[in-house]
């Protein structure tokens, strides 16, 4: 289970990233943030976000149009 879950379904670029940044601040170091999004662009964007900020994208998956990302707060 993730420490926090962010429901970003229905939100378009760049809101999922901006909200994830905020939510990540509430996650303790090495804790995890789960993000649910429906924006197909969020897949590439969360990969880039994690590479740039040094947080770890532990996994991402898709189920019925909903993308799920698990980010470990490592930066």
């Amino acid at each position, binding site marked *: 289970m993730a420490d926090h879950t962010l429901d970003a379904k*229905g*939100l*378009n*670029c*760049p*809101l999922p*990233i*901006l909200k*994830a*940044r905020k939510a990540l601040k509430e996650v303790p170091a090495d804790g995890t943030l789960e993000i649910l999004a429906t*924006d197909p662009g969020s897949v590439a964007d969360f990969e880039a*976000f994690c590479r*740039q*900020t*040094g947080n770890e994208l532990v996994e991402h998956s898709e189920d019925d149009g909903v993308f799920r990302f698990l980010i470990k707060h490592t*930066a």
Partner: protein
Amino acid sequence: MSAEEKSMSIIVTKGSLDWAYPPFILATTAAAMGLPVTMFFTFYGLPLLLKKLDLQLTAAGNPAMKMPMMGGHMGLPNILTAIPGVDAACTKMMKNLMNKKGVASIEDLRELAVEAEVRLIACQMTMDLFEYTLDDMIEGPELGGAATYIEVATQADINLFI
């Protein structure tokens, strides 16, 4: 954070509803990715700092603006944009569409930019030219001119003109 040494600046020169998006989207996203960001508001970009935003849109001179409609895409011939009320209707249509598609409002993005400590510089010359004062603006912008921006730009890794 690995990105801390990178920074970005944007010259914001346009103030229509559609053109207000790229600078605010990029500024807030870069800030979220750990980059210090500076936005320099000049000419028609300056009113984006006004307390009350009333952003409008026109299809005039923009053949690429085609709205999704009845399964297709519809543009507007220039001559129709001259009819009173047409721009207002286009603006309303665009705002409705954005709302429906989960696109943030400029008001929201601007607030997020302020919250993320994006540095906002209002062009002094444009303030004089169009007779605005800092009292007309939201809390946060500082005043500066070309030299102020150039100093920022020489330090930044990404400099955009929008």
